[in-house]
C-alpha cells in the first residue's frame, strides 16, 4: 500500500456516495494526483481494489483525460490559453514571454522544478478577461508580460499548493484547495468573478460595482 490513509478514506467516501462504485474513478484519480502529484501504476492498482474494478479500467480513464499527469510536474502548474478569444488579445505575446523567462518550452518544467507550463488550445473559459492563464487552477486574467512576472515571481519559492494540507471538502479535490495567500503578495488583485476566498471588509472583491461583475476582470 502506498497511498496515505487520508487519501484512501477520501476515495472510499467518494465511492459510497455514488449509486455505482465505478463512478468514483474520476474523483479517486483527483485524490491520487493531489497526494502523489501524478497518477502512478501503484496508485491505480490501489484505486482499482477500493472501487472493485480492473486496474486496466482505471488506467484507461486516467490516460483519456488531459488533466491527469502521467509523469512528474513542477510545484506549480501554469496553463495559458491560445484559443481564439485569447489569441485575438495577445496570447502569443504571453506564450513568447513565458518561454523566454522560464527558459523551457511548452509542456516542460523549469530547471528549479518550480513551474510546469504549457499553452493549450482548450479554451479555459476566461475569454472575458483575455488573455488568460490558470495558475494552480486559479484564473489570472488581462495578462501582460509584467503581470505574468509579478504572479510567477511571488510564487516561485512557494511550496506546491497541496503540500502539508488536508484534502478539501468532499475529499475529492481537484488538487489544490485554496491557493496560499502568499501568492497574492505584490500582485495587483484580479477582481472579476467572485472569489471563493472570504474577502476582508472593504476589499476590492466586496466593493466591486455589480455592473462590472460580468465574468471578467475589471480593467
Amino acid at each position, binding site marked *: 500500500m502506498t497511498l496515505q490513509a487520508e487519501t484512501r478514506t477520501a476515495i472510499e467516501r467518494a465511492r459510497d456516495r455514488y*449509486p455505482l462504485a465505478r*463512478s468514483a474513478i474520476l474523483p479517486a484519480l483527483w485524490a491520487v494526483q493531489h497526494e502523489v502529484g501524478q497518477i502512478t501504476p501503484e496508485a491505480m492498482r490501489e484505486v482499482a481494489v477500493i472501487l472493485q474494478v480492473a486496474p486496466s479500467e482505471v488506467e484507461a480513464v486516467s490516460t483519456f483525460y488531459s488533466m491527469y499527469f502521467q509523469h512528474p510536474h513542477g510545484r506549480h502548474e501554469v496553463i495559458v490559453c491560445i484559443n481564439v478569444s485569447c489569441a*485575438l488579445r495577445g496570447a502569443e505575446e504571453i506564450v513568447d514571454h513565458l518561454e523566454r523567462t522560464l527558459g523551457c518550452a511548452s509542456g516542460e518544467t523549469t530547471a528549479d522544478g518550480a513551474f510546469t507550463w504549457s499553452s493549450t488550445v482548450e479554451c479555459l473559459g476566461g475569454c472575458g478577461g483575455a488573455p488568460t492563464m490558470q495558475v494552480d487552477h486559479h484564473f489570472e486574467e488581462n495578462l501582460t508580460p509584467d503581470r505574468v512576472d509579478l504572479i510567477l515571481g511571488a510564487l516561485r519559492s512557494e511550496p506546491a499548493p497541496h503540500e502539508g494540507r488536508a484534502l478539501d471538502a468532499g475529499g475529492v479535490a481537484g488538487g489544490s484547495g485554496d491557493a496560499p495567500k502568499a501568492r497574492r503578495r505584490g500582485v495587483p488583485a484580479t477582481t472579476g468573478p467572485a472569489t471563493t476566498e472570504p474577502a476582508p471588509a472593504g476589499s476590492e472583491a466586496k466593493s466591486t460595482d455589480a455592473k462590472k461583475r460580468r465574468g471578467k476582470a475589471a480593467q
Partner: protein
Amino acid sequence: MARMAEYRLLTKDFGADALQTVQGYEKVGGYQGLRDAFKKFTPDSLVAEVKTSNIRGRGGAGFPTGMKWSFLPKDVFPRYLCCNADESEPGCFKDRYLIDESPHQLIEGLLIASYALQVNISFIYIRGEYHDQRLLLERAVEEARGAGYIGRNILGSGFDCDVIVHGGAGAYICGEETALIESLEGLRGQPRLKPPFPAIKGLYGQPTVVNNVETLCNMPHIVQRGGEWFKSLGTEKSSGTRVFCCSGHINRPGNYEMQLGTPIRELLEEECGGIWKDGSLKAFQPGGGSMQVLLPQHLDLPLDMNAVQEAGSSLGAGAMVFMDETTCLVDVSMRLVDFYRHESCGKCVPCREGTYFESELMHRLEAGLATRAELASLADICSNMDGRCFCPLGDTATWFVMSAYKYFRDEFEAHCGAGRCPVRAQATALVA
C-alpha cells in the same frame, strides 16, 4: 451612459451582498421558487408549465426543455438529472459566471427540475478547469443541505433529493450528453450510439435528463412568474433571455444578459462598447467555436435562434467573438481546427483522422507553405467529415473553417505559396 439593451432576469441580483450563501440568496427571494413548486405544482403540472414557457436549452442545440422532460417513460425509476456544467465551447464563459455569482440559483433550478422529473439523485458535472467553481458549488450544496433544501423530505414536501457535484478532468467531448454520462459512470468520455436516447436509457441504464446550467437557472423564474409570462419575453421561437459571452476585439468584453430578439448590433454597440481602438468589424462568431462565421451585414439580425440559423449559423452556446479588420481568418480557423484535433475523442475515424488532416493543412496554409492544390483539398476533407461523424464534434470541426473559406476565399488563396501570413505581413508593414 444609458445602457438599455440589457434585460436582467437571471443576473438581476448579481453583486448583492453574500449572494453565494444561502442567507444572502434568500434575502433576494432565493428558494421561493422551490417553495412555490411544491405548493402550486404537481410534478406533471410543472413539466406542463415548463412546456408552456417554450424555453429552449441554453447549451447549444436549443432543444425545447419541456419536450425533453416529457420524453421520460412513465413509471420507470430511478431517474437521474445531470446538470451539464462542462462548459468548454471556445468563447464561452457564461456558466462559470452564473456559478461564480449565484451558485444557489443553479442549485434551486436543479431541485425544481428534479421535483418535476421525480429524480432523487441529481448530478452537476463541472469541467476540471473550473476548480474554484467546483469548490464553491460543493460548499453551496452542503450549505443548502444544512438549510433543509437538499436531503430527505425537503421543506416538508415529502420529496427527497441528493445533489452530487462531479468534477471532470479536461475533456471537451464530455459536454456531449452521452459522453457526459459515460464519464459520470467512470469511463472514458466517448459518446454513445443513439438511440436509445438518454431519456430512455441514460445514466446507469435508467431514464436521464441532461440540462445546461443556464437552462436550469431559469427554472426558479418560470415557476414564480409562470410559463405564459416567460413566453412573453423574447421572440415566438426563442423565448426568454440569454446570457451572451462577448469577447475578442471589443471595448467591454464580458457577459451580458439580453432579451432574445434584440438586434446583435445593440449588443455590440451599446453593451460591448463597439470595436476597440476605433476599428471596424471584419467578422464575428455568434455561437462559439463550433458555429459558422458571420459578417458585418449580419449585425442587424435579431438574437433569435431561428433567425441566426437562417443566416447560416447558430446562436449555439451564446458565445459572441468579434474580430476587427486586422484579424487573419486563416489563423482563427487554424486555432479552432487545432482545438478539435486536440479534443477529438478518437472513437470514430472521420473525426479522428479528419481533424488531423485539417489541422496539418491549416498550419501549412497559415505559414504560407500550402499550394493551391492543397487548399483545394480542404473542401474534400471537410465533406468527408460533416454528417459522417459519430457525434456533432466532428461535424462542427468543419463548420467555421468552411464558412470562413466561403466568405474570405481571397484571403485563404493569398496565403498559398506566400511564404508567410499575408495578413500579418500587412499589419507589420502598417506599423512600420
